[in-house]
């Protein structure tokens, strides 16, 4: 171990840093936990868990939670919270069901209308929080009650549907195999180009500030490591997709939404400001950052995701049902926390929250295959959440010191 870290110390600082984020403690532990759980579930389910069919199902099951966890991560990085998610998504789902099943609105228009409606819900909460200064915990708690109430009143607590098959296909459909493969390859190529450009910009900035360049062998190592991180999930996905009908549409939504959120949070001034606002409101204010604007936009983005999740939820269930989306906010917050987003704000990432969401889904799916009762599942989830937090609080913090 000491030999390893001694060898590590000779690395260029930047390379070391990047490698330790790629293969950081958290990521490694995630992979380890995934592998351990998968093995346990696979063996005890007599080989059902690790089949393309089940994993494809798992991806579809986790899609909505992943999207919503990404959104709540954005708010939590801002040091805000959203407890209304389940109700907001439910209400958006009701609207989507009415639009397509009751009023026969074309699918595309229904999607746009639902997303706009979701943004409106986000706007309402943004007004409470930003303009009136109500803590987001309370403002969104009100949303949790009110939006569920509105949805239930509107539907008389009944089911709205069934929605047309082309709407169901938004979540449950599959991209035909040839196109699926083409997409996977395209993503891989895009990833390689992205990594190449990243290293090129690194070289450029070092040249400008007359710093020593990264030694060639290390640059190649870093390049390889990054490609490995991009390629591995794509290969696994290729295996799942090849074995069962193609890329699930729900996953396409996840990829698009999470890519956009990740770019937003890591490349734009908005994302940077969100981290700064979350890390220290006072310091952000004294830096002249528009705190209100940043938080306001965060809620609107979250609102758009209510819409997306509402569409997917109704599509997945085939209709809007009164209990849909219940406790989704708690799953989303748990996913974000497990994925390393701090409730205090300023740290974590959207991708981490998505990993957390899929970890929770793996546990759900595996336990369902094993016929563990849903009551026991709640207890297991609780234990995992607490362990994840305790782990964060002690081990990771100690390591960073």
């Amino acid at each position: 171990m000491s030999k390893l870290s001694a060898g590590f110390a000779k690395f260029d600082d930047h390379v070391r840093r990047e490698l330790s984020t790629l293969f950081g403690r958290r990521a490694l532990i995630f992979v380890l936990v995934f592998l351990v759980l998968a093995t346990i579930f696979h063996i005890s389910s007599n080989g059902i868990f690790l089949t393309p069919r089940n994993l494809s199902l798992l991806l579809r099951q986790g899609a909505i939670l992943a999207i919503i966890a990404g959104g709540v991560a954005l708010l939590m990085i801002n040091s805000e919270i959203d407890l209304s998610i389940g109700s907001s998504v439910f209400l958006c789902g009701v609207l989507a069901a009415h639009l397509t099943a009751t009023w026969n609105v074309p699918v595309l228009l229904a999607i746009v209308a639902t997303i706009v409606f979701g943004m409106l819900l986000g706007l309402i909460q943004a007004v409470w929080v930003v303009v009136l200064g109500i803590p987001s915990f309370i403002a969104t708690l009100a949303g949790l009650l009110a939006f569920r109430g509105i949805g239930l009143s509107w539907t008389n607590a009944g089911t709205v549907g069934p929605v047309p098959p082309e709407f169901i296909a938004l979540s449950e459909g599959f991209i035909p195999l040839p196109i699926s493969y083409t997409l996977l390859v395209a993503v891989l190529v895009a990833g390689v180009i992205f990594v190449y450009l990243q290293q090129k910009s690194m070289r450029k900035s070092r040249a400008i500030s007359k710093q020593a360049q990264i030694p060639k062998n290390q640059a190649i190592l870093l390049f390889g490591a990054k490609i490995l991180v991009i390629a591995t999930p794509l290969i696994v996905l290729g295996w799942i997709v090849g074995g069962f009908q193609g890329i699930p549409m729900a996953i396409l939504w996840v990829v698009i939404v999470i890519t956009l959120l990740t770019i937003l949070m890591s490349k734009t001034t908005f994302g940077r400001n969100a981290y700064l606002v979350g890390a220290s409101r006072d310091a952000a204010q004294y830096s002249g950052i528009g705190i209100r604007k940043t938080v306001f936009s965060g809620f609107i983005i979250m609102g758009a995701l209510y819409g997306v999740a509402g569409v997917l939820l109704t599509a997945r269930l085939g209709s809007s049902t009164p209990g849909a989306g219940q406790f989704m906010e708690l799953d989303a917050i748990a996913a974000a926390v497990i994925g390393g987003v701090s409730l205090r704000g300023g740290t974590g990432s959207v991708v981490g929250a998505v990993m957390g969401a899929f970890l929770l889904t793996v546990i759900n799916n595996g336990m369902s295959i094993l016929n563990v009762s849903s009551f026991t599942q709640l207890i297991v989830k609780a234990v995992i959440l607490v362990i994840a937090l305790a782990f964060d609080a002690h081990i990771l913090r100690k390591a960073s010191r």
Partner: protein
Amino acid sequence: MNSKLESESLGMEPRSVPREAVGVALIEATDITKAFAGVNALHSASLKLSYGQILGVVGENGAGKSTLMKVLAGIHPRGTYTGSFNLEGQECQFASVKEARNAGIVLIPQELSIAPNLSIAENMFAGDLPQTGGFVNETELAARAAKWLEFFEIEVSGFESASVLSPSQQRLAMMAGALSRNAKVLILDEPTASLSEGETVILFQHLRRLSKDKIGIVFISHRLDDIEQVCDQVIIMRNGKIVKSLSREDFNREEIVSSMIGRSLTAIKRSSVTNKSSQEIFSAESVMVHDPIDNARYRVENFSMTTKQGEIVGLFGLVGAGRTEFARAVFGTWPGKVSGEFKVGGNKFVPSSPKHAVKNGIGFLTEDRKQTGIFTGLSLTWNVDSASLKLVSKLGFISQVPDKVRTRNLMEQLDVRAQSSDQNIETLSGGNQQKILLGRWLATSPKLLILDEPTAGVDVGAREEIYQRVEALASSGCSILVISSDLDEISRLCNRTYVISGGRLTGEFENNVSRRDLMAAATKRLRVATN
């Protein structure tokens, strides 16, 4: 020194001192030495307080006054300092504030922590509420509160919320709380800092009454007027030592001031920056800064100033003089009302928010690095960027290369000692953190940069580097306002210095002013409004 002190305080017994106390001092502290991280904050300090004595303690910021008082009041527990300490002839070193309080020594801090939603009585007796069987005994509480409020002539029921009390009444109520627990010694840290003239007079009357009841009072103040009015004896501290002790009849303002700042009364060293063009960059006229809670009170009153291009202007004042309030008013973060005329670069400027101020070319390096400066847990680059992200981004997207290059250049210019610009800012020393924050404002290319106590908590080496960067910035045309209570800093840096005391302008000096004049102006309390 010790023998001199003793003879003076023993000779100070003309009052009606009770029989039992004759010959024994209330407090006798000898050779107290306390170090923080190897640096002596107190160096062999000795003091003696007799029954009924009001002892003034004066000195520049950082002279060791507070440290000494914290030792007496048990905030610095025994074992963290050396020296002996007797209360009423008994050796006693406290392990905690509670122990000190039970023994009869209470420190009333400058910033009171009053819980405005609790009742006056609850605030007074917090931590010591009379109880019966685990419940608060309301009758007993009311009786105790009434007795002590009456003593201080506060005609408010103890059950009213503490927010109805004026600042001076709050202070009296806290003193009453202490006295109700049979306090023998009250240590008052800057008790008049937030009081008006009238309130100060009332406070002093009460202090004299307490002194007749043989309570010993230690009175820390920056205001020599206060000291002259109320104290029997004054000790003057400098660099952790007690350099002088004067009894009332020997009070001499000249002597006190020169002891505070040291023997050298040489004129201020001329600053090396001479690039003074005539173009005015910033002006403030008749600025009034209202108290955020009580709008009728002023924290800064009728204050006017200007800065020119390339000029380093000092704003000298002691803690609580209204310096930071003025800066926050300009930057748009003062919670209360602000009035007055401001101009930046010749254009009218109305402070509204830091965003607006930054947009208009104003930067503000705050005094409180932890709270309003650094972004904890984030990298150096992100800490540098926060005020000028727009300059390195296009259409809302951050341009990675210019961003990195800029940070690295700034780190090099400021000689920040760090491994990498991606490092967490919390891993840096205070001095290097301060350089990063200075870098944040350099990156905005400001017209006016306000530096509030720029070298507080910064080691000597980094201090000089910061000064040099500030001078270089000034010679590139930026005008700089240095807020400081450090005479060395003012004399090292500033071309011109305004002095503020009690929220009012008490002097404007060129850079050849003597330190004595500066200190005299800063401790002056204007009796009559200047207008």
